[in-house]
C-alpha cells in the first residue's frame, strides 16, 4: 500500500533556556523515531503520559518543527517547503485535540469559527453558508444551532464541531490526539463510529493517539508503542495484540483494565522473548542507543546490540 506519511529519524529536543547555567540539561522528548503511515489506514500510537506522543504529533503537523529528521508527506519533504507552500500542505493535514473546550474560541459562534478556516482558504463566498451546513450535517449537528456558542453544547457535541472544522479544510490526513478520552462511554462510541464513517467516506488517513489500548486495538490497522520518547515496538494491530514482545509493551498491555487481573507484568533481566542473537532489551551501557529491528512481516522491536 502507498505511504502517505514517512517519518525518518525524528528528534525533538527541548533546550533549557537558563542564562548562566553551564550545565546542559536538554530534554529529548522524541528520540530517533521513524514510522510509515499508509494511505487510508489508522495508525495507533500508544504510551503513557509524558512519553512524547503529543510532541511527535505536533512535529508531524509542523506546529513544533522537529529538531532533526525528515517528514515526508506524500513523498515531499515538508521542511523544504516555503511558508506559502507549507500553508497549502497544512490544509491537507489537520489535527483534533483532546479537549474541545480549549480548541474552540468561547467568544466565537459556531458559524464564525467554521467560517474562519473557509475564508482563509478562499472558499467562494456565496457557498460558505451551505458548506458550513453540509459539514455540520456530516457530523450530526443540526444546522439550526449554527449561531450558538461553544458553551451551549455538550462535550460530545463540541468534539463533533471540532471534527467538522478540521474537515472543512478537506484534509487527507488527520491527527487525532486522544479525541475521546474526555467523553463518557456512550458518547465515546458515537464519536468513534463517526470517525470511522468519515474515514471511509473521504478516504482519510488517521494518526490516532491514545493511552487506551482497548480502543486502539479496536480501530487501528497498525500500532506503535512509545516509551520515553522512543518507539519500542511496532506491528500490525492483530500481530501486536496476539504476540507482544517488548517488555514495556507487555507491561502496558497487562495494565489495560478488563482482564480480570490486577497483576502488572514486570520483566527481569533474563527476559529475551523474540530477540535475535546478539541483542538485548536492556541497555548494556548507560549510553547505548536503541535500534528498531524488523523481526519479520513488519513487526519491529526496539533493542540494543550486544558488542563483543
Amino acid at each position, binding site marked *: 500500500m502507498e505511504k502517505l506519511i514517512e517519518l525518518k529519524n525524528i528528534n525533538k529536543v527541548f533546550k533549557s533556556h537558563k542564562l548562566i547555567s553551564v550545565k546542559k540539561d536538554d530534554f529529548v522528548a522524541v528520540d530517533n523515531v521513524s514510522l510509515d503511515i499508509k494511505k487510508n489506514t489508522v495508525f495507533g500510537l500508544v504510551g*503513557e*503520559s509524558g512519553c512524547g506522543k503529543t510532541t511527535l504529533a505536533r512535529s508531524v503537523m509542523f506546529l513544533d518543527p522537529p529538531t532533526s529528521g525528515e517528514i515526508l508527506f506524500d513523498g515531499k519533504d515538508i521542511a523544504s517547503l516555503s511558508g506559502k507552500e507549507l500553508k497549502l500542505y497544512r490544509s491537507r493535514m489537520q489535527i483534533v485535540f483532546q479537549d474541545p473546550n480549549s480548541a474552540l474560541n468561547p467568544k466565537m459562534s459556531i458559524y464564525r469559527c467554521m467560517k474562519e478556516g473557509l475564508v482563509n482558504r478562499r472558499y467562494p463566498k456565496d457557498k460558505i453558508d451551505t458548506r458550513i451546513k453540509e459539514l455540520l450535517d456530516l457530523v450530526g449537528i443540526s444546522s439550526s444551532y449554527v449561531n450558538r456558542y461553544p458553551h451551549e453544547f*455538550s462535550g*460530545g457535541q463540541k468534539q463533533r464541531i471540532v471534527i467538522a472544522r478540521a474537515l472543512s479544510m478537506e484534509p487527507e490526513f488527520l491527527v487525532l490526539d486522544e479525541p475521546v478520552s474526555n467523553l*463518557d*462511554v*456512550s*458518547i*465515546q*462510541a*458515537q464519536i*468513534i*463510529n463517526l470517525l*470511522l464513517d468519515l474515514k471511509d467516506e473521504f478516504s482519510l488517513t488517521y494518526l490516532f493517539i491514545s*493511552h487506551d*489500548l*482497548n*480502543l486502539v*486495538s*479496536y*480501530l487501528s490497522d497498525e500500532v506503535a508503542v512509545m516509551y520515553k520518547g522512543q518507539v519500542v515496538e511496532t506491528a500490525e*494491530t*492483530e500481530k501486536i*495484540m496476539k504476540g507482544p514482545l517488548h517488555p514495556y509493551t507487555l*507491561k*502496558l498491555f*497487562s*495494565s*489495560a*483494565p*478488563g*482482564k*480480570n*487481573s*490486577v*497483576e*502488572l507484568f514486570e520483566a527481569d533481566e533474563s527476559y529475551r522473548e523474540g530477540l535475535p542473537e546478539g541483542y538485548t532489551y536492556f541497555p548494556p551501557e548507560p549510553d547505548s542507543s536503541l535500534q528498531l529491528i524488523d523481526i519479520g512481516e513488519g513487526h519491529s522491536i526496539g533493542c540494543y546490540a550486544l558488542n563483543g
Partner: protein
Amino acid sequence: MPKKRADKRAVKRADSTLEIRDLNVSFIQGEKEANALRGISLSLKRSEVHSLVGESGSGKTVTSTCVMGLLPTPPARINAGEIILGDQDLLLLEEKDRREIRGKDIAMVFQEPARYLNPTLKVGDQITEMLILHLGMEKTEAVERALEILDLVGLKGGKRILDSYPHELSGGMKQRIMIAIAISCNPSFLIADEPTTALDVTLQLQILNLMLSLKNRLDMGILFISHDLRVVHDISDWISVIYAGRIVESASRETLFADPKHPYTKLLFESIPDADKRGKRLQTIPGKVPDAENIPGGCAFHPRCPIAEEICRTSQPETKNLGGNHTAACHFIGKQWKN
C-alpha cells in the same frame, strides 16, 4: 488534651454494613431544583468491593459526598432517605458527632490527590493529624504508626517521605499518600471516588492492586465509584449501575457481566471498544444523560431506550428482584431488540 482523647481507641465497632436507603437529594438554585439523587439504595458489606458505575452527571459523586457528610446544605437538600451505620442514621447526627465518624469509620479517597492534599503541610503532618485527632495518639506514637502505614501502602523511604511536601511527590505517590491518610484510622468503610481516573494505566493497576490487598488485610468495605466498566470488572464483588440519580441495575459482578438485564446496562457493555469488536460498528446510545433539572418523566432512560413503550413515558418502573439479589428497574426486563 491528648489524655482525654486516649479512651476513644477503646470504642469497639460492631458495624458490619453501611446501608444507604432511598436517598433523595436535590440542589436548589433560586427557583430551580435539580433532583440529583432520586431514591438510591445500596448496601456495602465489610471486606467487599461494591462499585457504583455511571456516566458523568448521573449522581455518583453526590452519593459519595452525601455518605461522607460533605454535601453543603444549602444548596443541597436531603429530601428523604437514611444512611445506616451500625445502629445509627448518619443523616440524623449532629455535625460534631458526624466528624467523629468521618475519617475514622468511613474514610474517603478522592479523584485528584493533588487537590485534596494541603500543599503547605508536610505529608507526615497530614497523616499524623488523623491519628492524633481520631485516636488520641501522642505525636511520637503517631509518627511511628505513620511509618507503618507508609509501608502498608508500598511507599519506601519512610522518614524522608513524611518530611516531604506534596509537590515533591509524583501523582502515583500522592494517591498512595491519600490512601495512607484514608486507612490511617483503620476505617470499616472506604469510599473511593474515581481514585485512578487521573493516573496512567500502569499506575492505575498498581493503585487498584494496593486497594484490594488493603481491603483484605484491614477487612474494609470499599464503595468504588467509577465511570470505567472495565476497571470495575477487575475489582468488584458487587456492581450497581446508576442512571440519572437512580440505580437501574444491581448484581454480583459475574451475573452482571454474564447476563445484564436492563437495556442501559446492555448498551453500555456493547458500546465499549475492544479488539474483539474490530471491523464491527460500536453500539451507541443515542442522546445524552439528562440534566438533573429536567429528568424525563416515567423511566428516565426512555428517550434513549430501544425498547421503550407508552408505559415507560408515564410510569417509573419498580425495582424488581430477579433472584439472588439481582435487581433491575425496567418495565420490560429481558425484552430483546434488533439493532
